[in-house]
């Protein structure tokens, strides 16, 4: 989230799209209702299903699953056509005036630079026109090569009629939505967009989200209280997991993981320290060397010296993609090609609190991949599908247990209440939780389990040697109790401390002696005199104490910022990009809802997303971007600098805009025998998957005699009334749903809440089902895995699977 949960109360219009917040974030949804009650805000819901969120909305619009880009570009076209955008904001805070290389083109569904053989884009034609090292601009927005004009041209095709044709929404409904949403394209009003997995789980996911962000930039809503682009994360700490390098491609704090070509620290830093593209760009990533060297000092402690590149060579280097679908593809295939040579795939899996058999798409492939492992460690509260994949029911088509040679360790872990430490919420708040009781039986806190295993491995390497033992033994593990690290100690290391006397570069009166906690990332050094496990978290644990434990809920601004409650990364800032909440002079667009204000000497209000004493005009509002302004045109993504409507990988229709390019051209299909894709002829119904508020993922259905199993006892399939009539399906009867990958059965829930759609002149149906059940769980509350049917398809930027739009057929069981 760019903004916070409570900040939603400041919105005049809320567009909930690609998410069902009433279902999945009911308590955060409180602030939607506060906006409705207290500001008479309008809640607009665009969703394939009439959801619990839609039930309390002011305006609901159906949409065919996966066509969000067409819908949003339609709204953008409406805003541009009818001058319902915030012109001063667009000129000041976006790249609308920047000029793009004339070689950039878009024809028949493809941007310039596409290589059909590789299925990839070369991005060089997408660059800006440079004058010296900076991009050229036209502040009047008239130059045909400026971003603004190119955008106008690009969205010209997305007329209300085209939106109706692609999305299946009546033109009149779409126009009502467009009118309400664009009513915030001015300084007086503010609007927010909230989304979740309904946007992220598509083969066009990043471009959908970008379209939402572009719309918010045109309306002048980014950086403002009551505005923003707000992703609602679905778990208590996947925000923290992402911030802390839970994924292969990043190190803590979103520093890039080293790759083969970056052999030395210098090569790494040269490649990853960007140059500014505008004179007024602060280009905050210029501090990459400070962040990286401080991270290496945290990782390797005394072993990291200037002479050995602070241990850089020990960091594993990646070549290519090691994300979710590649892990299990390479595991299934047994080997893979990296940097032009063959390498083994994983023969073992260690999983802490993760259930890949339930979570991954194409369940049969998951089971088959795990059956090829030599060993596996599962650390869990309960016996998950993953831990018992070797006895999966026969419809998963795994080998019988006698033929599964995998040794599986299942280790009992503590529950949340049985350990302390911090979770980071969707609004980036790190909040400490206190331990209430000991784990049951022999269960242990996960940090103890991990530490014991690591120390045992380290012992083996110290005693026996082996492959590059220094990689194992050089990592610092300098905790008071190494076998069960105190999480307060760990948080101190993440926040950062001085290793020698350190002078604050901006305030010479601030001096930290060796061993003292630093105040923030502004004090990090690139010479090895500071260490910091995650620069984004810097300041969470200072000499004043553990700021994640702060519990002062005073709200002097009345805007719901709560600066003295817990700690919000970065730098305790509550609204990201808040410089954009003010105009060129530093005056808030709306005096009643100020983000930050220039008072003549400094910025006041929220913690400024700006150098605190830099007068307006010194730097652009978007300090992390080399342009210094926000991107309506982004020459960085793998599938195009502008969003474009593409059908899902399993396409329900031929793309009405460019029949020759139906699905995202930058997506590459997987090719193993388990990766099969269906066609609209065999599987004519659009299907989507989702969660219910009464359950949590593949977790709560394990609760024996649990109240949640009472509220939602089992799997069901939501079916529109018209389709049920066509197929003779009664409410409550059994149905079969089949995709190219498998078949599942469930209870039919026949409903009027799934509207019939007219797509490209043809009647079309959508169905859906929740994800929560599987073959592990409390007896009586097991069921089919939704992912039995989902495809091996994903977004080409984030590699997140396409769970939200695929093709099926439906029959009476």
């Amino acid at each position, binding site marked *: 989230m760019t903004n916070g949960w409570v900040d939603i109360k400041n919105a005049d219009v809320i567009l909930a799209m690609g998410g069902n917040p*009433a*279902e999945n974030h*009911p*308590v955060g*949804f*409180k602030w*939607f*209702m*506060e906006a*409705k*009650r207290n500001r*008479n805000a309008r809640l607009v819901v665009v969703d394939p299903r*009439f959801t*619990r*969120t*839609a*039930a*309390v909305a*002011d305006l*609901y619009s159906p949409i065919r699953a996966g066509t969000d880009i067409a819908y949003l570009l339609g709204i953008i076209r409406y805003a541009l056509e009818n001058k319902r955008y915030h012109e001063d904001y667009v000129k000041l805070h976006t790249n609308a005036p920047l000029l793009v290389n004339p070689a950039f083109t878009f024809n028949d569904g493809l941007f310039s630079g596409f290589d059909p053989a590789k299925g990839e884009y070369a991005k060089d034609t997408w660059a800006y026109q440079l004058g010296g090292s900076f991009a050229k601009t036209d502040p009047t927005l008239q130059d045909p090569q400026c971003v603004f004009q190119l955008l106008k041209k690009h969205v010209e095709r997305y007329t209300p009629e085209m939106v109706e044709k692609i999305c299946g929404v009546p033109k009149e409904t779409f126009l009502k939505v467009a009118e309400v949403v664009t009513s915030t394209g001015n300084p007086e009003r503010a609007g927010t967009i909230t989304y979740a997995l309904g946007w992220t789980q598509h083969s066009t996911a990043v471009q959908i989200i970008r379209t939402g962000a572009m719309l918010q930039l045109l309306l002048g809503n980014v950086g403002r209280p009551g505005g923003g682009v707000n992703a609602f994360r679905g778990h208590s700490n996947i925000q923290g997991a992402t911030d802390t390098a839970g994924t292969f491609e990043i190190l803590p704090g979103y520093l890039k993981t080293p790759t083969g070509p970056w052999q030395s620290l210098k090569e790494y830093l040269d490649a990853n320290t960007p140059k500014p593209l505008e004179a007024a760009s602060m280009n905050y990533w210029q501090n990459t060397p400070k962040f990286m060297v401080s991270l290496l000092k945290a990782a390797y402690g005394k072993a990291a010296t200037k002479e050995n590149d602070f241990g850089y060579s020990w960091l594993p280097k990646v070549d290519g993609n090691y994300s979710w679908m590649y892990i299990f593809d390479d595991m299934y295939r047994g080997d893979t090609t990296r940097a032009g040579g063959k390498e083994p795939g994983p023969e073992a899996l260690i999983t802490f609190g993760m259930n890949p058999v339930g979570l991954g798409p194409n369940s049969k492939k998951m089971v088959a991949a795990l059956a090829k492992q030599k060993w596996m460690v599962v650390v869990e509260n309960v016996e998950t599908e993953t831990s018992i994949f070797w006895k999966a029911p026969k419809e998963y088509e795994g080998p019988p247990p006698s033929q599964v040679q995998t040794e599986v360790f299942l280790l009992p872990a503590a529950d949340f209440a049985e350990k302390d430490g911090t979770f980071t919420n969707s609004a980036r708040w790190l909040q400490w939780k206190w331990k209430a009781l000991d784990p049951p039986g022999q269960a242990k806190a996960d940090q103890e389990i991990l530490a014991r295993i690591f120390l045992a491995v380290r012992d083996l390497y110290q005693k026996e040697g082996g492959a590059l033992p220094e990689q194992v033994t050089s990592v610092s593990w300098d905790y008071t109790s190494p076998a069960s690290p105190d999480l307060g100690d760990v948080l101190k290391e993440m926040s950062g401390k001085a290793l020698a006397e350190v002078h604050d570069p901006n305030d010479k009166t601030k001096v930290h002696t060796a061993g003292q906690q630093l105040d923030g990332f502004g004090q990090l050094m690139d010479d090895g005199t500071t260490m910091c496990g995650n620069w984004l978290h810097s300041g969470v644990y200072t000499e004043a104490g553990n700021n994640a434990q702060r519990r002062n809920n005073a709200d002097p601004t009345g805007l719901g910022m709560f600066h003295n409650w817990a700690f919000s990364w970065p730098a305790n800032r509550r609204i990201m990009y808040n410089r954009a909440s003010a105009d060129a002079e530093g005056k808030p667009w709306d005096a009643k809802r100020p983000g930050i204000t220039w008072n003549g000497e400094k910025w006041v209000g929220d913690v400024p997303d700006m150098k605190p004493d830099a007068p307006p005009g010194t730097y652009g509002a978007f300090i992390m971007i080399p342009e210094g302004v926000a991107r309506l045109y982004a020459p960085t993504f793998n599938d195009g600098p502008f969003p474009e409507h593409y059908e899902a990988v399993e396409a329900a229709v031929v793309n009405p805009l460019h029949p020759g390019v139906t699905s995202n051209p930058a997506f590459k299909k997987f090719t193993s025998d388990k990766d099969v894709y269906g066609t609209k002829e065999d599987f004519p119904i659009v299907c989507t998957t989702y969660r219910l*508020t*009464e359950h949590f993922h593949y977790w709560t259905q394990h609760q024996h*005699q*649990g*109240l*949640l*199993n*009472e*509220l*939602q*006892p*089992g*799997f*069901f399939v939501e079916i529109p009334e018209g389709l049920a009539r066509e197929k003779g399906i009664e*409410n*409550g009867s059994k149905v079969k749903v089949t995709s190219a990958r498998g078949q599942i059965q469930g*209870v*039919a*829930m*026949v*409903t*009027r*809440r799934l*509207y019939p759609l007219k797509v490209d002149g043809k009647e079309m149906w959508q169905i859906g089902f929740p994800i929560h059940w599987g073959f592990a769980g*409390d*007896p*009586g*509350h097991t069921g089919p895995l939704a992912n039995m049917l989902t495809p091996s398809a994903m977004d080409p930027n984030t590699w997140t699977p396409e769970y939200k739009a695929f093709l099926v057929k439906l029959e009476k069981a």
Partner: protein
Amino acid sequence: MTTQNLEIRRSSASLWGEKTGMRHLPVVSKFIDTTTCIGCKACEVACQEWNDLEAVPTRQTGNYQTMPELDAEFWNLIRFNERDFDGGVVWLMRKDQCMHCEDPGCLAACPAPGAIVQYENGIVDVNPEACIGCGFCATGCPFNVPKFHAKTGKMAKCTLCVDRVTSGLEPACIKACPTGCLQFGTKDDMVALGHARVEQLKGNGFANAVLYDPPGVGGTGVVTVLGHGDHPEWYGLPADPHVPVGVRFWKSVLRPLGVVAMIGAVLGAIGHFMYQGPKEPRARDGEPPPPPGA
């Protein structure tokens, strides 16, 4: 020993409660705004959790609603209703529970002395020690609320968390409610809140919005904002609830005579047990029994 906590205004089959007249407590009320209810069911389980009630076996029958009716272990239930409206669909959710009537039909119908009481603050409560499980209270209730608990042989229903309210806390369902569609306070405040919300809704296209506080039972300790006030039945609410005539007759005519009524009640209760056994929970709309282990 009697409690010092709350004075009793009325008590079933009794001539008076223990009202001393010394203490004057404000009448409390729940407030339900169906137009901001998302049917999340937090109230359903917050109630079970607070009151230490067991999970009721259920099964999926093609509906989001947890079970067809209230249960002795399940004291509040969100009723889900889909209706066609204005060219689209509306999905209505209303929290159903004891309405804590100002003029409680259950209390009037109850033959067991002190088994149903109305405290000075308006809360209507079942006293399990005095309850004989005859089920008469259910026949007196125009909202079909009290349920027979087979294990204890007593009637059970929402207590309005009288234990919490007496200790200065709000009821468990109210506290849990994520959207604030449930609120708690004095009846006067909740009615004022309701009228203000109804006015706002009328300005937002809900021309028929009303605050449901039916006079036929003297008003309720649960006031409900209905967006479609012209269709209370869409929410599973009676349009004009009254205490049944038979119960009213027993209360207003027979009871002051004492004798006849009391004997009749006792005989009635005995007869009910002898010929029908304890009252069973309502059949679940013809559902087959739940699967074992559920």
